[in-house]
């Protein structure tokens, strides 16, 4: 259902196809390396999956892209990260996080806020808004996250009344309300049931028309279903990065093949 013919094969190397790129990116916790020298260029308006066994540094990589490591005093980040060829340091951390949204493993809506207020929670941080604009925005974001029809009659009730899958889609709505270019998702379905998972996967597939998406997943089928490109991490290193189909059918590295065929991990 979600297989897509990649029409742009021939244009592979044009620079502005890349949205986010990391050069020699390393992250240390207490002097111990979690990822080392990651060189990766993520393509614009596409889905890039990051796979690899537990502890290989997938989350660490993802969280360096929106400077989440700043919240961890023991973390140090080396190397450079560029968005559209601009170093992320130049954006400043607040603006960067508005440009690079993040969806977490466990749905984390704000429990004291209503569904409506959750959607606009990130906007409250960006200045004044008119109610009519907000209403429109809430409808648009909830529609985009596939939740509108389910919640349009109860926008003012607490977000905690939603199911886990609905909460996760609410978190996606909240993220896109800030108008990011890039959305990072760290195992967004690992806490969800199969039906909710399918819904999120469809959503990811639709969202890539407008956003660049990087998704971490443990689920190989999920990576195969939703992503255009896949990066395989192992022990803090990037082992292989290629078109998803290549990774799953004809990987260059033996390690990749063993991992995707389930020989370890």
């Amino acid at each position, binding site marked *: 259902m979600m297989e897509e013919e990649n029409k742009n094969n021939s244009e592979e190397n044009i620079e502005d196809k890349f949205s986010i790129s990391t050069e020699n990116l390393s992250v240390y916790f207490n002097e111990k390396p979690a990822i080392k020298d990651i060189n990766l260029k993520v393509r614009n308006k596409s889905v890039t999956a990051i796979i690899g066994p537990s502890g290989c540094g997938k989350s660490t990589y993802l969280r360096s892209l929106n400077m989440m490591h700043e919240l961890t005093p023991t973390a140090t980040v080396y190397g450079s990260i560029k968005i559209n060829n601009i170093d992320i340091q130049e954006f400043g951390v607040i603006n960067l996080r508005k440009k690079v949204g*993040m969806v*977490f493993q466990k749905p984390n809506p*704000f429990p004291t806020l209503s569904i409506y207020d959750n959607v606009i*929670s990130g906007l409250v*941080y960006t200045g004044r808004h008119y109610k009519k604009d907000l209403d429109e925005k809430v409808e648009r974001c909830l529609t985009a996250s596939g939740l509108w029809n389910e919640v349009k009659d109860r926008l003012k009730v607490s977000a905690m009344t939603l199911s886990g899958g609905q909460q996760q889609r609410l978190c996606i709505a909240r993220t896109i309300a*800030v108008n990011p270019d890039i959305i990072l998702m760290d195992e967004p379905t690992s806490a969800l049931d199969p039906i909710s998972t399918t819904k999120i996967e469809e959503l990811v597939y639709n969202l890539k028309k407008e956003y660049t998406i990087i998704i971490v997943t443990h689920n190989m089928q999920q990576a195969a279903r939703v992503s255009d490109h896949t990066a395989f991490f192992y022990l803090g290193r990037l082992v292989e990065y290629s078109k998803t189909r290549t990774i799953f059918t004809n990987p260059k590295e033996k390690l990749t093949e063993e991992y995707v065929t389930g020989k370890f991990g």
Partner: protein
Amino acid sequence: MFINSYPSRSQFGLSFIFSQDWDPVKDKFGALAFIYGTIVSSIIALIISLPISLGVAIFLSEMAGKFLKTTVGFLVEILAAIPSIIFGFWGLFVLVPFMRNSVQPFLEKTLGFIPLFSGANIGTGMLTAGIILAIMITPIISAISRDVIKAIPKSQREAAYALGATRWEAIRMALLNAKSGILGATVLGFGRAVGETMAVTMVIGNRAQISAGLFDPAYSMASVIANEFAEASKTIHVSSLIEVGLLLFVVTFIINSLARILIYSATKKYDAK
């Protein structure tokens, strides 16, 4: 207590609560002045303590470096462990003269047009009692508020930051999350203030009267029991004091239950799903 207060309950009925005459010599007993004194002094304590406690709690949970965090945390815990009679002595020898010589004249000069800031300037009185109580409940409210704020999972904090929140916006979000727990801590502090005996007895002035002026001496429920119980000889006097105790018990029980429920539900919220 219920049984032993029978003579006073049957003789005065509801007027016990609504009358402010308390005259053991004439066998007239009405508890309104004590109820008023207890509640007003506790409210003053809350008004003073709440902003300070919130500041301390935010500082301890969100901002302080490790050294400051342990030092201030330690101080808060020490303060909570000091017996109330020590606060009473400190109040009597330090706070009362200070109130008499500096604070009250100053307040009277600047805010004296408000009836609240008037009264006999003898140092002891409602305001002094409120301040002592504020000092005593601040450790409780700040320690519990700190715990409630700390109980907010990391994922909530990260959610705010990931949306581009500044530090203060993230703290505001944390406070919003901790709202009911902080309310619980406040109610608990209020309960402690209502039940406090020794320190209040020493500084409130011990006069059964209802006066708008906060500098005027007043009396609290716990204080009147402490002061008069040993000397009360007549049955009706004893049973009236017991009825005051009964009232105090019911009030603190309700306040404490409410506080526990609020704190419990605040820390349990995230486990639901």
